[in-house]
């Protein structure tokens, strides 16, 4: 038997490869580099919208979440289905079993092939599903993204669940209400480099300084969206700041962990807690008096609004241009903002009175 991989053969292979690479490189000297490419040839001359157009009956509405079997999207789907029922459309829910960027593409293709009029989707990747959405749109579908947007060129309208200002103001107003607008406040965040968390925290401090000057933000700690760590950070906060009046945790993991700590401690009912949480996680702490109120956008409303926006697009009431308005059933009238963004509105506030109405 000859020796494994003779040296000459190895050299030959490597040289061959290097030569091939070199030839390819030089052949394309001054090849395609980043940043030199065409800018996109601006959107189509916007078809004009007719605000008085009727939503046609039997619109086929397809709902494509990031993945199936995700409770958040199940609730959003229920909202979209309810809206579709109101305007007498046909509703289908589909989606991949894993939340990967590419797995949504074949589902978009399927919806397009089925002749779906309205595609409602939350993107796993802002770009990977773009070409599929473009093909679906040129085949006649209207595309509405919600929760997670794509590149604005690839969809007609994006339903934004909440603005930074809306989220920040709601939470600061809640803590001000619970503490009487006076005292030390700490923030329990997710990770130190979570972009959305940091944006919200900055907006909260700015808003509080202007509207609730009695609130003093003494610390921001990071529970890394881990239950145990968030629990310990809460404990640490209360030892460091014995006069703490309240905690804001703008993350669902953090607020649940903080509530669990408070409910088993001497601070229960003494230190206020609010933030962004889901009703199912927070139910027991609202009922035992640890937490008075917290907030989150309502995913059911999100799906409901997305379906109505899709129907308005399909009917020609809107085209996705700034300033157009449409009716979204019981949620009332909405206006399309810049870049085709529609904002759902302020987060829903959950209290002992209304928490029983929500299941997500």
């Amino acid at each position: 038997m000859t020796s494994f991989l003779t040296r000459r053969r190895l050299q030959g292979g490597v040289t061959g490869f290097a030569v091939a690479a070199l030839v390819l490189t030089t052949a394309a000297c001054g090849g395609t580099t980043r940043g030199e490419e065409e800018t996109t040839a601006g959107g189509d001359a916007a078809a004009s919208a007719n605000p008085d157009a009727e939503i046609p009956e039997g619109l086929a509405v397809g709902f494509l979440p990031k993945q199936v079997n995700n409770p958040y999207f199940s609730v959003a789907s229920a909202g979209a289905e309810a809206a579709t029922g109101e305007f007498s459309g046909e509703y289908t829910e589909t989606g991949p079993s894993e939340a990967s960027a590419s797995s949504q593409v074949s589902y978009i293709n399927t919806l397009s092939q089925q002749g779906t009029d309205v595609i409602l989707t939350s993107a796993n990747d802002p770009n990977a599903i773009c070409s599929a959405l473009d093909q679906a749109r040129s085949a006649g579908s209207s595309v509405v993204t919600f929760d997670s947007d794509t590149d604005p060129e690839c969809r007609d309208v994006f339903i934004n669940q909440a603005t930074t200002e809306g989220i920040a103001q709601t939470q600061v107003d809640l803590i001000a209400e619970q503490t009487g607008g006076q005292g030390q406040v700490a923030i329990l965040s997710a990770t130190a480099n979570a972009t959305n968390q940091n944006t919200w925290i900055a907006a909260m401090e700015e808003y509080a300084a202007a509207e609730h000057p009695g609130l003093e933000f003494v610390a921001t700690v990071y529970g890394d969206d881990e239950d145990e760590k968030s629990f310990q950070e809460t404990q640490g906060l209360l030892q460091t700041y014995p006069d703490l009046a309240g905690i804001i945790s703008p993350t669902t993991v953090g607020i649940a962990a903080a509530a669990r700590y408070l409910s088993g401690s001497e601070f229960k009912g003494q230190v206020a807690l609010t933030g962004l949480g889901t009703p199912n996680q927070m139910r027991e702490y609202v009922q035992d008096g640890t937490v008075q109120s917290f907030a989150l956008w309502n995913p059911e409303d999100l799906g409901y609004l997305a379906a109505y926006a899709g129907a308005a697009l399909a009917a020609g009431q809107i085209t996705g241009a700034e300033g157009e308005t449409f009716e979204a059933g019981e949620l009332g009238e909405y206006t399309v903002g810049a870049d085709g963004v529609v904002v759902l509105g302020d987060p829903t506030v959950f209290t002992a009175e209304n928490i029983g109405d929500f299941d997500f």
Partner: protein
Amino acid sequence: MAVDTPPATPAGQAGAQRPPAASRLRLLGSGDAVITFVLVLFLLVAALSVEGFASARNTGFLLLDVVVIVLIALPLTLVIVTGEIDLSVASTVGLSSAVMGQLWFAGLPLETVIPLCLLLGAVLGAVNGFFVTRLGLPSLAVTIGTLALYRGLAFVVLGDRAVADFPRSWTTWAISTIGGTGIPVVVVPLLVLVLVTAVVLHATPVGRSLYAMGNSEDAARFSGIDVGRTKFWLFVVTGVVSALGGVYWTLRYGSARADNAQGLELQVIAAILLGGVSIFGGRGGLLGVLAGALLLGSVRNALQLENVPADVLNIVTGGLLVVAVVAPQVAGWVRSRTRPRPAGPPNAPPARPAPDTRPSTDPAVQVPADQRGNR
């Protein structure tokens, strides 16, 4: 030993050395023929009963979904025929996608980035090949390790970012179709690769030596085949082709991400096994693999059009795979009951359900004369 069973030939070609009656039986039972028949049958049924299935547009969607699976299945079939496995192919796709994104982001022209990615694929494949052939480690263990390692490196390179500003002319080419046929342009180069692989596997001494290795490595070695070197280069080729898959994946979705093609290795292996290739090596053909990949893709496509939920879809494709593995065993059992086996030595081990996967210990029987001394 069963002298009339030359395991060094693929099941579909075994007829030449067999009595005609047995040859017909063998052909009917071969993975290639059965799976191709099932595919044709399924396409007919789906075309007639699933609305929107038989259209140029849908054909394009379907083919685009299986292009990368077929591409990677080509070299991986050869690897599996030799009795080895490479589970790191999808992670190689991910890592080459991530590197492609990072190099493009750094300002290198695509014409340089792509060869570099293929070179990277060669290195990744060579690492697998080194551990398996030089250090003699089992390929299953080695490539489970590199599956995690290469995916991890992909995240080191690109993190959770995505690079997406690839030139539109390239990304639209990746999904463009030939005229109004709905057939993607990339199918043409893919078909060339399929033909090359089929010729290598089924019509050259190299191909026959792969079956020989899969049936009995010792016998192959005694007959003068350099098993280690052949396998090493197979791993390198698998790495290069997987990296090519990563480049295409990136352009097709217009997005370089570290988690691209996560879990794809299982889809590729499923297509290969469904195509009648034995996971123990030594048996199977490329036509079957092609049919297996197309069948899995068509079933998914048709069931999606019928609004079958994703969970049920996974159950169906999983069940299909189990049937594909069990059916030949049952067929072999039925055959062994209905047809007395040719006389063998009395101490021959009990017939395994799939008779020609059994390695022969006699090198003279094992390897056809034309391969001796051939490497």
